[in-house]
Each structure stands twice: as structure tokens, then as C-alpha cells.
């Protein structure tokens, strides 16, 4: 198990107060806090090694290039990718998915081809496919989910087996339901149908051991900032043969072989997909985040979150008029708990929680189709999401603040609970 007290000492922001209270940061699905190791790596890079990469023949340029490329190798090891050259740095998960939609989709999709996603996708795994479908004449279809928040695998089999599917794009861990989808099974279905599988790992890679070879994925996209790293760095991993077959995404410096006015040739992968000066310093600092997680061990991170999620699910379900969405078993989901509270709007709930120092997310969490399918009174939820520095005290603070919210807005059950038991 994780030593949460020890971990918390590495996160300077956790020492601050919000509205006179201890900060209870439960918005990790949106972005995580940064340990001092990551903050120091960032300032160390700018203080000692700053230079552009892959061009200068001088000491700083060589150091900067080595630091940057070293992180590519760390990323590959973290997700058990066969080659570091299969790791492309992007701005974020969204850009990684857009890269595939543009560079793979526009080249290989034909009119009548089908792209299959799920109804629990983040908008970033919906809209890029709509754009590429409109440009190529392909059709977008979505696998629904069952009332328990798990994917409808019968529907998945039927949709993926239509004979026209070229690409399946699924979220590994839902950012609302917390559902962990059976990616290996979906990969088998996709490959049997002659399609490739893209996995949106924005929520899974930070919280679970993820092995791209074991999953059978063809593409994996995720973001550094949701796993202790800086904002502005995303990762696209793809099988090397796919990267080589794809067109470039953006044209410019660094991505070329030779350039002539009559035409140009492309650099080898991954440079072919990294046009222009990349976000060097933040990639280097991301390396410190990967080191931090590797030292904790992703199995230990997962075990910590299962235990905390189980505790939180029990505590939240005990509150009258709280309705948690998603799978009921902590082992079937990540440390993400979205819920509705009586008929209160999530913005009012999170506003009151903030006054108690509790930071949560409120709204549709960029998943409007998912929220529509949930059929809630208000098409929005309040979401608490955990990470390595959260503990039972944080869950207790959330529950206490929710009870206060209920009393404040005059929810009868909350008032009764206060007067009676």
C-alpha cells in the first residue's frame, strides 16, 4: 500500500488552505497536482540545460536532446511499448487523437467505411471522428452501455462485426462512470473484423498498469498532466508499421528528410510527427513524473485507489438522495465517482463544497452523449476523483461538506438526518 502521509509531503500545493480550510483536492480526473520532483525538474532544465533539440552541435543542445529522448524511452517502458520510436509527443490526449484522425483517417477511410466508438467517450474521442467522417464519407457509430455502467458487449460484437468497420476507438477508463472497459476483448473483436483499435488512455494510464502489448492496442493516447506531469504534453503511442504508413500530421521543421520546392521527403518516425520545436522542458519534467510513479509502482497505485474508491462508494451511498453512476464494484472501476444529489444542480453543489475547501468537478465533463444516456433530471453530475495523495480523511471531508450542502439548500433528507439520528 502507498504511504500517503509520505507522498503528501512531496506536493507543495497540498499545504495551502482554501477558504480557510485544508485543501481537499478531488478533481484529479481534470488534472493532478505536481510533486516537487516534477517542479524541480522543470526549473532545473531551464536553469542548466535549456537549448533547442535535434539541431545544435553544442553541449547544451546535446544535453537537451538527450534529456528529451530519454523521456521517450521512459514512456515506452511505462506502457511496455516495443520501441521508443513508437512514442510521439503531442500537446495532450486530444491532439494525439486528432493526429490519428487526420494522418491515418484521412488517408485510409473511404465512403461507407465505419468508425465505431462508445457512448461513454469524452468529446475528444467523438468530435475528431465526426470531422474525419465528414471529410471521407465514413460513418460513425456508438456502442451503448448497460444500466450498470458497463459496455454492452453484445452490441459491441454486432457493431464491430458489420463488415465495414476500419477503426474502433474506445475509452479505457470512463471519466464519468469510472468503468474500465475490456480493451483486450475489444481489440480481438476489432482485429477479427480487420479494423485497428485506438485506446483513449487519458484516465487509465495514470491510474492502472497499462501494457499496450497485452491489451493488443494499435494506438494509445494519454496526457502527462493527469499523471503528475506538466500541462502541454501528450503522448501518442502507435505500432511502428502504422506510424510509417500514415501521412504527416503537420509540416515544418524537424519532420522532414529533404526539402525542395518541387517536393519534400519525411523524417523517420517519430520525428515525422513532431514538426517544429516541441514542448521540451515539459517533456523533460514529465520524465520526473514517470520516475515518481514507477517508484511507487502502478500495482500499488491501483490497489490504493480500489481501497479508497470502495470506502468512498460506501460513504456516498449511505447519504440519502445521492445517486452514484457507474459500476457498483470498486474493482470494476477507477477512482472516479460521479453522482447526482437530489435535484440540486452540480454547480451549486460544487460551489458550496468549495467553501469547505473541497475541489470537485461539476457539469457534463465533456461527455454530453453519456449524460443524455444516463437520463438524469439535470444532464450533469458532480464528480470526485482520487489520486495517490488522497486518503479517507479526504472522503470524510467530502461527505461532511455534502451533508452541509444538503442542509443549506434545505433537502428534506439532510435536514432529517441532522434533527434525528
Amino acid at each position, binding site marked *: 500500500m502507498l504511504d500517503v502521509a509520505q507522498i503528501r509531503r512531496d506536493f507543495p500545493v497540498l499545504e495551502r488552505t482554501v*477558504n*480557510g*480550510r485544508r485543501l481537499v483536492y478531488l478533481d484529479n480526473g481534470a488534472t493532478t497536482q505536481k510533486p516537487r520532483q516534477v517542479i524541480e525538474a522543470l526549473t532545473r532544465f531551464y536553469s542548466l540545460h535549456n537549448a533547442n533539440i535535434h539541431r545544435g552541435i553544442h553541449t547544451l543542445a546535446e544535453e537537451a536532446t538527450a534529456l528529451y529522448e530519454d523521456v521517450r524511452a521512459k514512456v515506452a517502458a511505462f506502457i511496455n511499448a516495443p520501441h521508443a520510436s513508437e512514442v510521439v509527443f503531442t500537446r495532450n490526449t486530444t491532439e494525439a487523437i486528432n493526429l490519428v484522425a487526420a494522418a491515418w483517417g484521412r488517408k485510409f477511410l473511404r465512403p461507407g467505411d465505419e468508425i465505431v466508438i462508445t457512448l461513454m467517450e469524452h468529446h475528444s474521442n467523438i468530435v475528431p471522428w465526426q470531422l474525419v467522417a465528414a471529410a471521407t464519407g465514413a460513418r460513425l457509430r456508438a456502442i451503448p452501455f448497460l444500466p450498470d455502467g458497463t459496455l454492452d458487449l453484445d452490441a459491441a460484437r454486432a457493431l464491430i462485426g458489420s463488415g465495414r468497420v476500419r477503426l474502433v476507438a474506445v475509452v479505457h477508463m470512463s471519466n464519468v462512470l469510472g468503468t474500465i472497459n475490456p480493451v483486450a476483448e475489444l481489440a480481438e473483436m476489432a482485429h477479427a473484423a480487420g479494423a485497428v483499435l485506438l485506446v483513449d488512455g487519458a484516465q487509465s494510464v495514470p491510474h492502472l498498469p497499462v501494457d499496450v502489448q497485452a491489451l493488443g492496442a494499435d494506438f494509445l493516447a494519454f496526457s502527462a498532466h493527469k499523471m503528475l506531469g506538466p500541462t502541454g504534453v501528450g503522448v501518442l503511442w502507435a505500432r511502428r508499421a502504422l506510424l510509417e504508413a500514415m501521412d504527416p500530421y503537420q509540416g515544418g521543421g524537424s519532420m522532414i528528410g529533404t526539402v525542395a520546392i518541387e517536393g519534400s521527403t519525411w523524417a523517420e518516425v517519430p520525428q515525422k510527427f513532431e514538426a517544429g520545436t516541441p514542448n521540451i522542458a515539459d517533456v523533460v519534467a514529465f520524465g520526473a513524473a514517470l520516475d515518481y510513479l514507477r517508484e511507487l509502482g502502478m500495482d500499488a497505485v491501483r490497489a490504493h485507489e480500489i481501497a479508497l474508491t470502495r470506502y468512498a462508494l460506501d460513504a456516498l451511498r449511505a447519504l440519502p438522495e445521492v445517486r452514484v453512476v457507474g459500476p457498483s464494484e470498486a474493482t470494476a472501476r477507477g477512482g472516479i465517482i460521479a453522482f447526482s444529489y437530489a435535484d*440540486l*444542480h452540480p*454547480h*451549486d453543489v460544487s*460551489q*458550496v463544497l468549495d*467553501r*469547505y475547501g473541497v475541489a470537485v468537478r461539476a*457539469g*457534463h465533463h465533456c461527455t454530453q452523449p453519456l449524460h443524455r444516456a444516463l437520463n438524469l433530471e*439535470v*444532464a*450533469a453530475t458532480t464528480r470526485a476523483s482520487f489520486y495517490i495523495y488522497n486518503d479517507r480523511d479526504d472522503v470524510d471531508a467530502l461527505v*461532511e461538506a455534502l451533508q*452541509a450542502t444538503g442542509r*443549506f*439548500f*434545505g433537502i428534506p433528507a439532510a435536514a432529517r438526518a441532522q434533527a434525528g439520528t
Partner: protein
Amino acid sequence: MVSRPEPELDDIYREIILDHYRRPRNRGLLPDATVTAEGVNPICGDQLKLTLKLDGDRIAAVGFKGSGCAISQSSASLMTEAIRQRTLTDAERLKRAFEAMMVEGAAPVAELGDLEALQGVSKLPARVKCALLAWKVLGEALKERQGTAAAVTTEE
């Protein structure tokens, strides 16, 4: 449990706001409306439909229907009370005064009356749009009314 002081919520959710949230005034659409307008806040999903019954230049009756947070719904309820039985010119002036208080941080003018209760929300950039939704929809209604009037004038 250690007893701690309750955090200050009254500056955002003043009693009058909670009252209008729990018991909205002028709720329900007018069957004989002269002007209808609606709007949404795409980020939070708040939605509002507004109906006005005009008697010449005067707002004789007003009704609204909507869903959303306490701020957006109480703001709508307070607005309907403020513009009922007022002229369109008065409504336009109230709208400007309300927006000045919420967006520019202007001190509330006396004419705003109970609407002054929403001033605390002006300090929360993420929530200002909630309070403004009803007024944005009113603006649409006023524009539509002018459009109709202009069209009628052109025909004459």
C-alpha cells in the same frame, strides 16, 4: 466531530436568492404570449424560455420555464418580478444596469431593487453567466419585438 465555523455562503446565496430558487415567481409559459425567446448556457446546460405579453409598450405579463442552477433560476425569477408592469424602455434600462453590476462591477443602482442580491455572484467569474442567462434571453425577446415592429413599419 470538531465544531468549526460555517463557511460564508451568504454572500453568494443570499436568502432572497434561495427563496426565489425554492419558490420561483412567474413560473410557467404564457399561453397568449406576444413575444417568446429562449437560450442556453452550453457549458453548464442551464436553459430558459421566456414569454412576454405586451400591452402596447408595457409588459403586462411575463412567464418563464427553465432548468439549471440556483443562480440561473433565481435570477430569472427575480428578473420577471422586476420587469412585470414596466415599459420596454424600463426593461432595457434595468438590463443595462444589471449587466453593469454583474460584468463591470458597478455599484447596484436603486432601481435594481431585489436584484441587488445577485451582486455577490459578480465576484465568481464562472457563475456570472448563470445570472446573466435570463437577461440574455430578455435581450433576445426585446430584439425580436423591435424586429416585429420594424417589419410592421416597413409594410405601412
